[in-house]
């Protein structure tokens, strides 16, 4: 018996072995890392930590004290459960206050705060934002936010050169703070559908911007954020814009054209359709949200409810987990819009069912209620998703 033990030992000593069980675990993990590294060299999100990620944007306004405390607590809990990504959004017009004069402070503060929290940011820097352009004032038509100055288009050499100057400091700032992705327009399809922007201009601008950004740092993924409705209607301009990007990026809300909350059973098909539109590229969901609807009102204008909001996030996270190319998704938003922000957004629009549907959507979109910071049940689904994608 002893001879047999020594013979077996001698054989392994001569042919190779590992010291300690932990070492074979290490080797298996390194094999996995090698495979993933090879994959990411062919993919665009090389600065995003491996795996899938859930994050959120808190909101675009200041909150009452109790709500502010709840937001901080939610961030602490999400980080403890494994959240590693965050989102920042700003407009070009807010960064370049006059030609060649930049206000860097706000962006620097936001990015450094995220870095201190060990969160890696995705930056949405809007040139177009839904139904308006967000270029510096001297490049805009002074009387119409849907038009550029006479003689300019988004892909004019003048506009591209000015945007490149902006990128010369934004890109190093973003990457040095852990940034991994940059969207240069949010929902430009609205301007395209309304005839204020051509798809060719948008794609041309994206190609020019991407080329310059990647001359500054080739690892930073550049994209344009599109709406999921454009996938549903097979918008003709969608493929050319996605082709100009490193990754596909969408905003997704489970609501029909009347803002009525869709059945949870539609989520699987919607996510599959988004990935099909991504045409083989990796995908980021910049905004994913579902309104909880007014509480104590049955039925609500939009068919929302706390249980439907929870069920949506539960199913979305299931569908995301089944599709590794969907690399990151950000809840929009952690907090409802306030009545003040909603009224400002809706402006002086006359009362109409769709206006009230939008109002209810924005007022109940959060995982936390604006007024007191109390949480909706969907917050637990978000936390569970963060834990599920922790690696």
């Amino acid at each position, binding site marked *: *018996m*002893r001879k047999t*033990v020594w013979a*077996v*030992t001698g054989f*392994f*000593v001569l*042919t*190779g*072995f*590992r*010291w*300690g*069980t*932990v*070492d*074979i*675990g*290490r*080797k*298996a*993990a*390194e*094999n*996995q*890392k*090698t*495979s*993933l590294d090879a*994959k990411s060299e062919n993919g665009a999100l090389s600065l995003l*930590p*491996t*795996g*899938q990620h859930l994050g959120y944007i808190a909101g675009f306004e200041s909150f009452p004290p109790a709500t502010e405390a709840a937001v901080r607590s939610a961030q602490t809990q999400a980080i403890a459960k494994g959240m*590693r990504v965050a989102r920042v959004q700003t407009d070009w017009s807010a960064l370049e206050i006059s030609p060649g004069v930049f206000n860097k402070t706000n962006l620097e503060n936001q990015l450094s705060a995220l870095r201190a929290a060990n969160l890696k940011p995705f930056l949405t820097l809007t040139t177009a934002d839904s139904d308006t352009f967000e270029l510096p004032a001297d490049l805009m038509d002074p009387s119409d936010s849907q038009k550029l100055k006479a003689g300019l288009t988004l892909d004019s050499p003048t506009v591209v050169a000015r945007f490149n100057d902006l990128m010369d400091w934004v890109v190093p700032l973003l990457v040095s703070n852990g940034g991994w992705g940059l969207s240069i327009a949010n929902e430009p399809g609205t301007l395209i559908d309304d005839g204020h922007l051509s798809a060719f201009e948008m794609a041309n601008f994206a190609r020019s911007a991407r080329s310059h950004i990647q001359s500054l740092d080739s690892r930073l993924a550049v994209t344009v954020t599109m709406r999921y409705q454009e996938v549903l209607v097979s918008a003709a301009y969608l493929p050319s814009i996605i082709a100009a990007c490193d990754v596909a990026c969408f905003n997704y809300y489970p609501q029909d054209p009347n803002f009525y909350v869709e059945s949870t059973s539609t989520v699987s098909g919607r996510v599959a359709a988004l990935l099909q539109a991504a045409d083989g590229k990796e995908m980021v969901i910049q905004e994913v949200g579902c309104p909880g609807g007014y509480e104590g009102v049955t039925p609500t204008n939009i068919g929302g409810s706390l249980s439907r909001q929870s069920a949506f996030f539960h199913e979305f996270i299931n569908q995301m987990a089944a599709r*590794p190319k969907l*690399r990151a998704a950000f809840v929009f938003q952690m907090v409802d819009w306030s009545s003040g922000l909603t009224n400002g957004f809706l402006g002086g629009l006359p009362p109409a069912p769709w206006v009230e549907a939008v109002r209810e959507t924005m007022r109940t979109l959060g995982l936390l209620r604006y007024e007191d910071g109390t949480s909706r049940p969907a917050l637990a689904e978000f936390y569970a998703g963060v834990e599920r994608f922790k*690696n």
Partner: protein
Amino acid sequence: MAVLWPGLSIGYRAFNWAYEGRWQFMGGHADKGTGYNATLGSVRAARGVPLARTTRVYAGLEAGWFTYSTDDDFRTKGMTLGAYVGLEKFFKGPFSFAFDIGPYWAGTREIQGESGSEFDAVINAAVRWNFGREK
């Protein structure tokens, strides 16, 4: 109790059976110079047969769970399974030295459709401090 290469363990012997809980860790630099840390927790069960008054041979099974992380933000976790045969030599006092070898498999959880696995011979060695050992 035992000091392992590399780690610590605590175990219990009864009627020629031995049961052990182990914690192993290692850190260093991977191929491209990136720092890494690996930690493993495992349980073992082994049947021993005395060969002489101070020597016994044993064979058993081990199941473990490990985590692995690198400085460049890669993290994964997985499990190990293995079988082994070994020799334990008892010295004066409470000390003994155990040395075993056998085939092991390790596999990681899937990330982005990729998982890692490895099958290889593993040697485990330990210096044990035995409480109340029968002479």
